[in-house]
């Protein structure tokens, strides 16, 4: 059965839905501010865990304080295997390779040479640690004696409150790239570099092909030949690619999630920034799809016109 949709009805219903959504949005803002933390939550203030970084005394002069805290940050990056982060090959926002310097006991006394050993990683660009929420503090990643931990807030059942705990995890986290890292050997990295390099190169070529197709389309229009079969094909290809790109990236991120399933914990979340930029591709793709439909109609009309004697 073919459903007939009246254009006026469609536009009216879309406008109504937008108005209702706006009303809900404002209602949530107005009513949401009256929420408060209920009284039975007791915050545990005492910290059983030793601090991750050595505490820099804040009674020091500013320059000294800054220097010391910078040094502490550097040592932390070294301990986390995330210092002097060097990139590798990667497919945008899905997976990549990289490396960094790792040293567990370095104190950075000597600043002239680079301390630590090189550690290679697979970078999972689509995944990061869960951001802090209104009730839980942020999750802090740190490595002690070669074992990765995340420090997070959990519910303390005995005391009816919250406490900070260190949970051992298998993955590593990069502060510079804000993504998860899986430690690998250098030979595996070489193989991955070749595979990813080939894929990245093909994507690169494909992108150039799409740009060339678009330029040819513009040239054809300026020549006065807009409604041709090749133009229709180009428009369709551009539209499908633009719409498929975010969907494929999204799916690939979940394929990565499945492949490295035993590295993942509930504290890992999909990166919002990655998801956020995708609507541009979708909208551009939809516009191209509409252009394709319009040109298809145009081609039919032109054919009819040409065959009218």
């Amino acid at each position, binding site marked *: 059965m073919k459903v007939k949709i009246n254009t006026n009805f469609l536009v009216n219903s879309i406008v109504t839905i937008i108005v209702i959504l706006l009303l809900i949005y404002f209602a949530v803002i107005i009513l949401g501010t009256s929420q408060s933390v209920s009284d039975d939550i007791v915050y545990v203030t005492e910290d059983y865990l030793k601090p991750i970084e050595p505490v820099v005394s804040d009674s020091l002069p500013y320059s000294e304080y800054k220097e010391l805290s910078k040094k502490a940050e550097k040592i932390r990056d070294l301990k986390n295997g995330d210092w002097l982060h060097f990139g590798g090959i990667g497919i945008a926002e899905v997976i990549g390779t990289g490396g960094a310097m790792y040293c567990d006991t370095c104190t950075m006394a000597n600043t002239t040479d680079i301390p630590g050993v090189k550690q290679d990683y697979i970078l999972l660009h689509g995944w990061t640690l869960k951001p802090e929420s209104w009730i839980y503090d942020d999750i802090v990643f740190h490595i002690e004696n070669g074992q990765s931990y995340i420090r997070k807030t959990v519910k303390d059942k005995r005391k009816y409150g919250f406490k900070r705990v260190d949970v051992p995890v298998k993955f590593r986290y990069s502060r510079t790239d804000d993504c998860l890292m899986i430690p690998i050997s250098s030979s595996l990295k070489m193989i991955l570099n070749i595979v990813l390099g080939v894929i990245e190169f093909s994507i690169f070529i494909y992108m150039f092909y799409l740009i060339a197709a678009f330029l040819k389309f513009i040239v054809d229009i300026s020549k006065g030949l807009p409604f041709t079969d090749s133009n229709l094909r180009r428009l369709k290809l551009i539209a499908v690619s633009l719409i498929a790109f975010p969907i494929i990236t999204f799916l690939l991120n979940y394929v990565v999630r499945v492949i490295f399933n035993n590295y993942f914990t509930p504290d890992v979340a999909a990166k919002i920034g990655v998801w956020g930029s995708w609507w541009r591709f979708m909208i551009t793709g939809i516009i191209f799809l509409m252009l394709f439909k319009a040109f298809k109609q145009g081609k039919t009309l032109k054919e009819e016109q040409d065959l009218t*004697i």
Partner: protein
Amino acid sequence: MPIIINLDVMMAKRKMSLTELSEKVGITMANLSILKTGKAKAVRLETLENICRILDCQPGDILEYVK
């Protein structure tokens, strides 16, 4: 298409060549051959009028419907 264009029959009766007809009717050779081979999707009444005038015939002499 069940509509057949008998332009060549009429042209043979009047002993008129394709070039001559196209010049007199005022349409291009390419369009006339599209019409003759039956690829045309539509015929303008104006064109039909011109052809009928030049070939001195009725539209029914040129167009025929077969089941």
